[in-house]
């Protein structure tokens, strides 16, 4: 059994910081890597050591395997944690680590490769008697083959990148006319994101639930699941709100799906933390969608209801420890919801909103966890993911959790950029969400509520105008003052009692 002493975190943003937190709690040193765009980022400051690995574009830095491996060697890191995204599901990278005698904190290159290629994964799952969505797993050689394959599945059809994840390289096609253009777009995105433009197509299940199971497995064949996460609320095929337990889950279905998830993981001799994603239709039939062979963005809601620190478990498994948790000992305690805070304009087709944070106030108090990485003055780079933080809230009941999330979102203030906070508040106030009656069609179905223009309370608008005037005149006043006396130090606002008459 090896004891890991230093971990290089091959990632950035909130997940890099989150991993380093667990390292620190385990007494393990952490090494940050950063691109030119990230010198001032929090993970660089949080780590014990930090090394520049290249220019801003990911391909030159966070996806640069050789640079990352040489940095691990230079800093004497004995393990690499890939986080999610970037190299986390790259079997070549996992193999390179193995070859260099660096522990890759994740599953084997075989498991990554098998599950990472959607076509191989489907075959493996069918073999293991795990239900899958009807679809075509061939590699398509020409447009005609594509069109014919689509006809046999019947529309609507979902085009997916075999190396995909996070909604990239995905396109919904409702009729044959859209097919070729959609495939081209999906391929182009997939190539950019995963350096692999192979795609496949599946029957599109109308308005399913998107429910996933968290898996933990050690290297001795012990495999357990940590219950489900309901991830049906998505915009642009990307999750924005997740919760556990799922409002539609029954005890019987949970046991059945949990067993299926464990079998799916065992089919590839999985070890580490992983997630089996399922589509669940209106009749509670479920289908294997994919396995994410890494930590999931929404892992904290599972941590909160089970009490288990998943990053610590990943590290313990990586250093050949046996799982010390049994399936029976894990309980779902209370309810947890995660809201993802994106730097984006929800009212404008969720367009990204990079820029400089001029003010930030993060929510706190009982039952609130906020995993972010931006601070006042931080300039969010255009090069990476728009997710700037995750707000995870726990309550004894689902109702208490929703009320607490509303409270936490009320407290959360970020200015200088547009964020999803107000949109998330609207989701939390949507009757369908409050009643737990929603599926992946939620945003479309509730668009009138979610994209309604905000209604100004009372005469708040005029108070805002007055504040703007005061700020503006004080600003002008300050410039004038400065030109008179350079060394003046007093803040205009602190001179209580100073009199102005107009």
């Amino acid at each position: 059994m090896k004891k890991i002493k230093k971990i290089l975190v091959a990632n950035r943003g909130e997940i890099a910081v989150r991993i380093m937190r667990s390292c620190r709690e385990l007494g393990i040193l952490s090494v940050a890597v950063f691109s030119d765009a990230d010198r001032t980022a929090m993970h660089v400051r949080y780590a014990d050591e930090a090394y520049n690995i290249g220019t801003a574009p990911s391909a030159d830095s966070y996806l640069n395997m050789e640079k990352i491996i040489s940095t691990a060697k230079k800093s004497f890191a004995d393990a690499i944690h890939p986080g999610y995204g970037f190299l986390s599901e790259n079997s070549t990278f996992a193999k390179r680590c193995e070859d260099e005698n660096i522990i890759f904190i994740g599953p084997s290159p075989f498991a990554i490769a098998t599950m990472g290629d959607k076509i191989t994964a489907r075959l493996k799952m069918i073999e293991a008697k795990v239900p899958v969505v009807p679809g075509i797993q061939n590699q398509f050689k020409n447009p005609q083959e594509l069109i014919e394959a689509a006809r046999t599945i019947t529309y609507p059809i979902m085009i997916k990148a075999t190396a995909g994840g996070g909604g990239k390289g995905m396109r919904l096609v409702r009729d044959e006319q859209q097919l070729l253009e959609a495939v081209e777009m999906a391929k182009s995105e997939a190539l950019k994101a995963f350096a692999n433009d192979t795609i496949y197509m599946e029957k599109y299940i109308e308005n399913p639930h998107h429910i996933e199971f968290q898996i933990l497995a050690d290297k001795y064949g012990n495999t357990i699941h940590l219950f489900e996460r309901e991830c049906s609320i998505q915009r642009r095929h990307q999750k924005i709100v997740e919760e556990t337990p799922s409002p539609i889950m029954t005890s019987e279905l949970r046991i059945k799906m949990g067993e299926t998830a464990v079998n799916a993981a065992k089919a590839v001799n999985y070890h580490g933390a992983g997630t089996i994603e399922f589509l669940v239709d209106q009749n509670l039939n479920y289908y294997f969608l994919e396995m994410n062979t890494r930590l999931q963005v929404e892992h904290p809601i599972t941590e909160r209801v089970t009490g288990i620190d998943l990053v610590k478990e990943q590290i313990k498994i990586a250093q050949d420890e046996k799982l010390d948790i049994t399936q029976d000992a894990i309980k779902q305690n209370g309810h947890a919801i995660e809201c993802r805070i994106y730097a984006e304009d929800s009212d404008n087709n969720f367009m990204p909103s990079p820029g400089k944070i001029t003010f930030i106030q993060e929510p706190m108090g009982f039952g609130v966890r906020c995993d972010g990485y931006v601070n006042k003055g931080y300039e969010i780079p255009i090069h990476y993911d728009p997710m700037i933080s995750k707000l995870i809230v726990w309550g004894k009941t689902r109702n208490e959790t929703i009320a607490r999330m509303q409270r936490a979102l009320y407290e959360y203030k970020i200015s200088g950029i547009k964020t999803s906070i107000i949109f998330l508040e609207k989701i939390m106030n949507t009757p369908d969400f409050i009643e737990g009656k929603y599926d992946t069609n939620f945003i479309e179905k509730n668009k009138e509520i979610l994209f309604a223009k905000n209604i100004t309370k009372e005469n708040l608008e005029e108070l805002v105008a007055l504040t703007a005037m005061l700020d503006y005149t004080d600003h002008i006043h300050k410039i004038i003052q400065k030109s008179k006396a350079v060394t003046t130090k007093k803040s205009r606002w602190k001179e209580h009692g100073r009199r102005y008459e107009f």
Partner: protein
Amino acid sequence: MELEIKINNRVVKVKLLKREGNFVKAQINDNIYEIDIVKICENNYSIIHQGKSHVIDMAHISNTKKYTAATYFNNYDIEIIDAQAKAKALRKANNPEEETKIITSPMSGNIVKIAVSPEQEVKIGQLLLIVEAMKMQTEYRSAFNSRVKKITVQNGDTISAGQLLIELY
């Protein structure tokens, strides 16, 4: 002291009547307000008005006359209207198409594709260029039937918010 302020799509006249320490008396259109206002830190104001406590965040955008303001419940776009702004608005009103036939970037990002060339005819809805930011590609399409006058960016350029990208005739 009096100022016109545009808040979202409405213009209000704000007249400061008195200011003494935290206390401000002002007239906004026909309403009189007496408020207690303090600046908590850069951008952030606490206001007490008739007992109600409000927090207003007042962030500059691009220049000192434009703000985005946020309360706990809402966002506002604000512009201080001075003589210069009035003149500009007037010019725009007299010549409504002057400023609309240019394509500017609403956000910073990288140009990943330019789909037209100078002097090319374009139709409403036709793809002009694709910008990538934060791993998302956004397509900019023409709002006019027109012709490309000038393309001021190149493939691969990093652009900032508000930057001119394409001019149409």
